[in-house]
């Protein structure tokens, strides 16, 4: 566990305490800790003197600001049409087999979450996935297994 209060203080020092500081602060938390815990949202609300419901409202609007438990590595498989035609289904099956989780779930060791995402702009090199902020493209089942193995050994 991390000290959420310390991190939020650090982020408010950096981004300020105005309403418009909310987004970069939430992004900063997610960058370090994958998702927003209730404690983290309450801490942000306190620092910015806004209600916790407002923080939750903003966070829940954005797909990349998760308010549900997520693993250290969030795998997002592009679900839009080009990636679908180029074998997205197979990629998902491979990852599901490998990690023993379904789309939307997180491994019990909290290392990986598997999600689908809307277009991430790599149609010309489909199928594509994101792991946290990094894109991986022109994937095959073999390639994706190797990539995830790499993360397992990190």
């Amino acid at each position, binding site marked *: 566990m991390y000290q959420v209060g310390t991190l939020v203080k650090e982020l408010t020092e950096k981004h300020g305490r105005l309403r418009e500081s909310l987004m970069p602060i939430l992004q900063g938390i997610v960058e370090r800790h994958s998702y927003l815990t*209730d404690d983290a*949202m*309450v801490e942000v*609300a*306190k620092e910015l003197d*806004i*209600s*916790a*419901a*407002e*923080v*939750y*409202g903003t966070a*829940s*609007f954005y797909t990349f600001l998760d*308010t549900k438990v997520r693993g250290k590595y969030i795998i997002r498989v592009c679900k839009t049409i080009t990636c679908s035609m180029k074998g997205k289904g197979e990629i998902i099956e491979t990852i599901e087999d490998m990690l023993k989780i379904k789309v939307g779930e997180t491994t019990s060791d909290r290392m990986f979450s598997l999600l689908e995402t809307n277009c991430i702009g790599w149609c010309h090199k489909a199928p594509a996935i994101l792991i946290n902020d990094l894109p991986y493209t022109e994937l095959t089942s073999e390639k994706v297994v190797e990539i995830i193995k790499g993360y397992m050994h990190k």
Partner: protein
Amino acid sequence: MINLTINDQKISVPAGSTVLDAAKKLNINIPTLCNHPDLCIAGNCRVCLVEQKGARTLIAACAMPVAEGMDIHTNTLKVRNARKHVVELLLSEHRSDCTKCYKNQKCELQSLANEFAFGDTIFLDLVEDHPYEIDRSSPSFIKDDSKCIRCQRCVRTCSELQYISAIAVANKGAHQKISSFHDRPMSHVVCTNCGQCVNRCPTGALVEKTYIDQVWDAIYDPDKHVVVQTAPAVRVALGEDLGYDPGERVTGKMVTALRQLGFDSVLDTDFSADLTIMEEGTELLTRLKKALVDGDKKISFPMFTSCSPGWIKFIEHKYPEFLPNLSTCKSPQQMFGALAKTYFAQKRKIDPSKIVSVSVMPCTAKKYEADRPEMRDSGYKDIDYVLTTRELAVMIKQAGINFKNLEPSHYDSIMGDSTGAAVIFGATGGVMEAALRTAYEIVTGREVPFNNLNITPVRGMEGVKEATIKIEGCTDDWKFLEGAELKTAIAHGLTNANKIMRLVRQGKSPYHFVEIMACPGGCIGGGGQPIPTSMEIRKNRMKAIYSEDEHMILRKSHENPDVIAIYSDFLGKPNSHKAHELLHTHYVEREQY
């Protein structure tokens, strides 16, 4: 001034007005839904679409500022079809079980649907497949997401008027909903139960939790003695739900109606409002004495009034370090409740276990207050059921009473007498004025130095009001106050309350005594009052309250004969041991987020 035409009629309006404002001046009706006179513009429901010649798309009249030479048309085929589709789309996501809905015939969406006379709709009904939740956790109101059209009036109310933001817009697209923090039950978040959202919800998504059936059951139970009390603000607003214009005083007719409904004793919260003044006024003077004469360092000022349960929950959540500054007096409702099953029961020789105590309040937070575990000092639940003004109107209609034709009558005695000081509790500044009328006289032996007892500086709709009363000519007991200036402040609506609380927290408050009411305008603008509400409606109710005061023979709480009697027969004197047992309470620190 900006010149424009609407439906070929010329009009000039000040810059910054909206197309909707301009249309109103021409008596042209444009339907609205998300728009509300108390709230900022949202422009999200799109019901008010109109056509502007030369513009590519239709525009939302409520959000579009006027511009020179605009040529607006509100009644073209394009406008009609667009509005119709907008309402149909809203209905496709709204559970239209109208005949079973609490807001049946009082729903703005239903009126619009009626206006457009829909037959079969071309849109799919999306309600059935959506996992909507109904939150019944609050004792004050019900939140039913399947009826929500996401106009966000409630969200704006909670944030702009009440500074709480217990609810916000969460998620997006088809999943968008009005949500508390992480969808927690409303009873478990920072919500004051004030019901201002309920008062502004255009549909049945937010309604008061009703206790009408329980009250009918009690009335028809021959074993029970059902006592009813009515709050000051009810009598100047009830008429609105029964065919009168805002601002009509219907006190006497209401009393007759309550008897016809079958209540066994029809009594008045105004009695316990007068009692509150005796207790709270004495408490203020005692605090001043302890601080100034005894040098008691534990006494801190300002002292806050404690009549408004929405305000109490606000300070418990948001400023718990100032709970010692709250008057320990229960609200008039709860003072009445504690006395109904003790003093009243003894006097009337009724077994208190057989008494069912009902109150009619302009308020939804009172339902929560009655449920607080502290409110059982009579040995029973002091108040069994709280009805809003709206619920009373429903009962009167259910009973087939022709309200307008009723002969006025008077409250029963023992706890039914009241003064003008009590009735003004219903308006912002009223508790302060009533307290000053009595406290000044206790200290100086003379009436407050204001024409006809009307302490005008504490009256009116300004968000935060201040008044300084110079105390002169004290009697011997109160010589230590000679020449002192009593500094008071009044706030209504929790956003205004928060302004004062910030000052207090910063140590910059100069005040000795502060009155705070959770709702805009005070209780006359309460969450349980007839819908709609607006500044104009609240002003009319306020006028009626002061006129009610002027028409009373007695206008000072300490002159109320029932109050004098209860002190001599039962309580002893104000702030006595017995008074403390029954009429005072304590507060609870609650989570801030």
